[in-house]
């Protein structure tokens, strides 16, 4: 469809007038109400219509009001954070493209307050470094323990680079810096890199302790999992754990036995630990954890097999998934530890797939806080 020049001019005029009358200033109270509307988004598209209107309104904000939108971030609402992030990015990007600037001072002030929402601070950081890349180094120098794990990750990269730059001339100082950096590292790739560098300088790293892996377990198996039907069968360990008793397993009576993993990542390879390499089988692993107080923790499991975890008899996660990759922290569940002894039971279910990539039967479990910082038993 094509239009005459006159028509296009008329259209443009209409658009300009409409734009002029439809851009009222958005005041602070209104911004707060609009962010609340977005934070009210629910599952399956609930609240989208109002949230979409709120996005359109908030996008009209002045760049100097960005911090008011960042104030509305609540990382516990992952969906709403993404809606709000899109608003902030749109406002600042539009400003830059129309020759405006980024409000660096107010964003720096927002970033400096570590009580502010971690996701919002990350957004502030990204736009600060977009507006003035030279501020990056200044920020990262003091961000090794930043609550935003994304900012912290960059700070760690920065600190590792600094340490490695003096490695040849000042080995002991580099080692000291690397050890300090490691204590802040939470991402596996960074921990691996720093560990390699520390060891190359003659230092040692206790990885199971750094991560909080539980390495000593009592094990029992096999129980039947033919046709994967045993996953939902409550075998004896799910009712009571008596480490001395023999119970009926898949191939006769079986008993608990103890095993300690020497793997740096706390891995227990059941194919080598159990008497045989079983298929269509289930093993249970039990351990205790002495906690110096009642506390909420993350129980983080890496397991390529079907799995369930109970803490003090309470089922906290169940994943009937076989041979679909694995990694540290693959499954994360919240649990409450009592002061004193806590019983942790893991069910690891192997299926009967015959492919070479479907043979592993293993798990690794650690306890940490929500940021990934290890929580160690009081008797460790």
């Amino acid at each position, binding site marked *: 469809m094509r239009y005459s020049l006159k028509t296009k001019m008329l*259209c443009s005029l209409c658009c300009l007038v409409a734009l002029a009358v*439809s851009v009222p200033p958005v005041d602070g109270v209104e911004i707060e109400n609009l962010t609340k509307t977005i934070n009210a988004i629910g599952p399956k598209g609930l609240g989208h219509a109002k949230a979409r209107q709120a996005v359109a309104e908030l996008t009209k904000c002045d760049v100097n009001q960005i911090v008011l939108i960042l104030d509305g971030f609540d990382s516990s609402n992952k969906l709403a954070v*993404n809606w709000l992030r*899109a608003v902030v990015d749109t406002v600042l990007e539009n400003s830059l493209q129309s020759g405006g600037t980024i409000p660096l001072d107010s964003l720096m002030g927002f970033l400096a307050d570590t009580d502010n929402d971690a996701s919002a601070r990350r957004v502030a950081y990204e736009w600060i470094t977009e507006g003035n890349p030279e501020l990056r180094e200044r920020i990262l120098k003091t961000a090794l323990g930043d609550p935003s794990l994304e900012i912290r*990750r960059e700070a760690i990269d920065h600190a590792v680079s600094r340490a490695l730059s003096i490695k040849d001339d000042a080995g002991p100082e580099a080692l000291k810096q690397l050890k300090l950096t490691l204590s802040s590292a939470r991402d596996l*790739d960074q921990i691996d890199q720093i560990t390699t560098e520390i060891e190359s300088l003659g230092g040692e790293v206790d990885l199971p302790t750094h991560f909080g892996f539980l390495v000593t377990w009592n094990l029992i198996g096999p129980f039947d999992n033919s046709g994967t039907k045993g996953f939902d069968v409550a075998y004896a360990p799910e009712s009571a754990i008596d480490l001395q008793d023999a119970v009926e397993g898949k191939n006769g009576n079986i008993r608990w036995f103890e095993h300690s993993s020497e793997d740096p990542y706390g891995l227990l390879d059941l194919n080598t630990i159990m008497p045989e390499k079983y298929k269509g089988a289930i093993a249970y692993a039990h351990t205790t954890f002495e906690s110096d107080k009642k506390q909420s923790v993350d129980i983080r499991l890496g397991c390529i097999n079907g799995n369930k975890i109970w803490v003090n008899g309470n089922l906290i996660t169940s994943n009937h998934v*076989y041979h679909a*990759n694995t990694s540290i922290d693959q499954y994360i569940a919240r649990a409450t530890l009592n002061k004193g002894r806590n019983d942790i039971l893991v069910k690891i279910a192997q299926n009967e797939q015959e492919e070479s990539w479907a043979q592993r039967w293993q798990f690794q479990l650690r306890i940490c806080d929500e940021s990934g910082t290890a929580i160690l038993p009081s008797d460790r």
Partner: protein
Amino acid sequence: MKILQIIFAFVCLQFVETNAESADWADFRGPNGNPVHDGKLPLRWDIDGKENVAWKANLPGRGVSSPIAVGNLVVVTASAGAKQQKLYVVAFDQQTGEQRWKRSFWATGRTYTHPTSSNAAPTPVSDGEYIYAFYSSNDLVCLDLKGNLMWYRGLAHDYPKAGNDVGMASSPAIAGDVVVVQIENQGDSFASGIDRFTGKELWRVPRDPRANWSSPVAYQINDGSFTVLLQSPTGLNAVDAKTGNERWTKEMSCGNITSPLKVGQAIYFGAGGTTRLKLNSKGTTPEVVWNANRLTANAASPIVDGENLYILSGSIIKSADANTGDLNWQVRLKGRFWATPILSNGHLYFFNQDGLVQIVKVGETGEVVEEFEIGEPVLGTPAAVGNALYFRSDKHLWKISHP
């Protein structure tokens, strides 16, 4: 004042040209899911010498999704971060390669994938008005062509067991006013129709709890409604796009990576090698026309150009008679492939996992006429518009065209 605004907005809307007509490569595997293009693309380019490289743009993260071309934009997704939790949608100017806008989000679902893949594995889709970007983590975002957020859904936020730590890769499809996603895995396994304007769930149907990477394919039928094909290991299902109600099912053992192809009244899909079905006017279960067990595709989906069917079987490109399934010729290529090739001006363009481009001239026989390195892995199907080819490598988006 409100009335005035509404009047002005209404007047303006009457004159706004939509971009729908220019959205010419806006789906996974291009228009109609059949990556056949009639432009004249370069047969060779030189990443160092810049020969036929119109531009090359940096991407903010990795990805194995394909770029799409919509309006005057090329849009691509990417993911980054220690756990691939950072999601990107980036739009570039087709002419200059300049970044028009970039939006970033945090994944709300599982982000683990095999190292070969990426959270940004599904290809985005556009209806010319909006862009729908989807990720392995089952995050689905709708943006307009200026990058304004329309809505954001976390499908694994709603269904927490949805996910596959090997990585999901099924691309969304648009069927009328419905965005269809196929999320098949060992946890919460389902297909869903989502209102393209609001992001609300219109329907959700359970699917077999098995890993599947096949993408839905939509087509319009005589009564104006849309049908969606869903291929999974147990067969091919056709469902109504508005309700998810089953229209017909063909129970056959199917591949779980390739996607079906509809051309006219024929459907080609990966069952027992390749099977061709013939759709009927009654909309009942189609009949098998032929089945060719020699035409087994691994990752790349079928291509049909007139009478010729092309199937990439491992590293062997096979040309068959589309009417009979009889093999015409085959040529062995080098390397491992994930990307479906595109066909343009009598040449098939192959990108292998190691970044080797191989161009095969097709006709009575097939012949590799060009072979050269581009230095980065390519796992996504390219897009083609006019005489330009767009592809995404691990870290860059490229435009290839004659000067």
